[in-house]
């Protein structure tokens, strides 16, 4: 299963033939991280190297492990929305959506159309946000400082949009079981349109500025090739899998939130190298922008919460006149709702791949067990395969294009 690039392994074999008679050689273990800018968080890699060539990579994870799954078991379902976005802090809405959709499947809650469309908009803006960080920091790892500032210019504008809907620039926790925590501001759709215009100009800028940069192309082409069968064997999902030629996108394959109503393409490449992984994400920028534009057109006024009082809090004004509303409010805040017994799983396509929450309910108002299917955790396994035989500088490229988020790896 190991990806060996015979061309690059040649020096090792040659040295073996010369049997070190002239020079003493040995395998050197190099420690990378956990505090290293190219590891995008706190990942520690122990790299066994023969000269400049990597022969083995051993990742050590867990520095960010905070036991979210255990925390979920001791909080009510609605409180769990706080923890879901903190796992993947770059595409928070992906995790939020997966969790909320799972609980809604358990409850069979009815989400109003407006809430669903706002979810789609935020889900796609979150994907853009995550890919912007990918482009900025990924290029930074390769020594290009400029893209970082270009990408973060758009990222800041996006975070302003997130802040104006829910008050948080990151780790939003804006979705609720049954809808949204509150309605979007009136001028928000217009501001998203303005952002999209600016953003699409920005994407053209990126493509001209660095996607065709010869130095970048030289460092990314043919580096860290993951063939199709290896990618499937390793359980890769998301852009990493699509770069290896498998057109799996849950927005198309298992549509949620009405994704079947949107026209968009899923870019797929068969090259499987770092360049393909980079280019696919650049293409996804435009596809996400396309979806957001369509969603903005569909947006109509309406409720943003399931009207079922056993799930959603009653409106504030009712608390002054209705005893039932007070009782519902009290029960929901102190105890929460009791979903029926069952086990559910809803896959969602996040910026990194398939996110799903396997939720086990025992009938209480806290989940019995929540298992997060974290795409970064599984994708990170590709590092051990893709790096073997490549140079150390390529390891940084490969790690950057696999794009793990360490919060998602460690949970």
């Amino acid at each position, binding site marked *: 299963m190991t990806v060996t690039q015979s061309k690059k392994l040649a020096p090792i074999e040659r040295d073996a033939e010369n049997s070190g008679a002239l020079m003493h050689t040995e395998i050197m273990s190099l420690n990378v991280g956990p505090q290293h800018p190219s590891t995008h968080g706190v990942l520690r890699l122990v790299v066994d190297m023969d000269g400049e060539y990597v022969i083995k990579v051993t990742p050590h994870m867990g520095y960010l492990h905070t036991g979210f799954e255990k925390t979920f078991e001791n909080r009510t379902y609605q409180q769990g929305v706080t923890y879901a976005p903190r796992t993947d802090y770059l595409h928070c809405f992906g995790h939020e959506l997966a969790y909320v959709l799972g609980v809604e499947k358990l409850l069979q809650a009815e989400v109003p159309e407006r809430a669903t469309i706002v979810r789609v908009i935020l889900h796609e803006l979150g994907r853009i946000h995550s890919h912007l960080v990918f482009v900025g920091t990924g290029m930074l790892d390769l020594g290009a400082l400029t893209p970082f500032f270009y990408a973060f210019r758009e990222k800041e504008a996006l975070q302003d949009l997130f802040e104006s809907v829910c008050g948080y620039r990151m780790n939003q926790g804006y979705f609720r079981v049954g809808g949204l925590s509150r309605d979007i501001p009136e001028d928000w759709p217009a501001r998203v349109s303005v952002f999209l215009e600016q953003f699409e100009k920005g994407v053209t800028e990126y493509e001209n500025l660095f996607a065709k940069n010869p130095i970048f192309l030289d460092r990314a082409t043919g580096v860290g090739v993951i063939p199709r069968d290896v990618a499937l064997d390793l359980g890769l999902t998301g852009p990493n899998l699509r770069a290896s030629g498998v057109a799996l996108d849950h927005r198309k394959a298992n549509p949620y939130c009405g994704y079947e109503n949107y026209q968009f393409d899923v870019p797929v490449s068969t090259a499987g190298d770092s360049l393909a992984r980079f280019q696919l994400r650049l293409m996804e920028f435009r596809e996400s922008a396309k979806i957001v534009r369509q969603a903005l057109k569909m947006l109509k006024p309406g409720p943003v919460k399931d009207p079922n009082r056993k799930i959603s809090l009653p409106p504030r004004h009712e608390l002054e006149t209705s005893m039932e509303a007070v009782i519902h409010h009290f029960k929901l805040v102190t105890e929460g709702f009791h979903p029926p017994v069952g086990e559910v799983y809803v896959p969602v396509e996040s910026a990194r791949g398939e996110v799903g929450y396997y939720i086990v309910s025992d009938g*209480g108002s806290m989940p019995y067990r929540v298992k997060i299917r974290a795409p970064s955790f599984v994708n990170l396994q590709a590092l051990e395969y893709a790096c073997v035989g490549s140079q150390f500088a390529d390891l940084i490229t490969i790690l950057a294009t696999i794009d793990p988020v360490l919060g998602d790896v460690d949970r």
Partner: protein
Amino acid sequence: MTGGGNDGSGGSGNTEKLTGRNASMQSSQSQPVRPVAEVRPVPVDDPTVGRHSLAAQGLNPTDPRDVKPLMAALGLTEDDAAEPTAIVPAEQLREVAMQLKARGFMLMDTVGIDYSAYTSPRPKRFAVLHNVYHPDDHRRLFLRVWLHDGEPLDSLYPVWKAANYLEREVYDLMGVEFVGHPDLRKVLTPDDLEGHPLRKDFPLGETPTLFREGRFLDPATFRAGLSGQQRGLTGYRGELRRGQGEDRMPPVMPEGGPK
């Protein structure tokens, strides 16, 4: 299991609790301009929730994503969970996985569940679920293996390399041993942590909330009312609140007291 509540209607089931106030609630909406509150019953303890929703809507009874024929071909029995789940005897797991791999399935996730505090009795304490998915025809199947405490399970690493980290995680957090895994080490918790945190008997290590006059709220007692194990009393007992019923208080403060 889930009924009860503050109204003290001990014998009432979930349906009654959830829908009982329907009539009075709607009649209380005196002003027609305000949106009328809608109360729908939350489906009651239906283990097949979601599974038959397609059939119930009259949609496509021969769904190409239906995995029942596949389960029949592999000779597996179906579980009553909401997602398409097959019960696999532990000794057959690797063979079943190899057949699935030959059909083009990929391993998406491995879930370990400790059922020791579950409300209804389960066959064994642990369940390991392998989430397999077909990337071309989009069938998804969960393989459920029941395990006693300490009972080892065949690793799926020889079948799918994806099982490497996934099984290490289940081993680390749930304490299930996988036979044939080449590198079964801890993956998320620190090396000096003893025990498996996602087991239900792993202590949470939290401190009680201290109020005036020495009263305190024990977090575990507070949460007991929220779990499925007890009737929902909002975790807040009237006697304790008024300083009565000392016999129901936890006998000792945890060592060191609140910080």
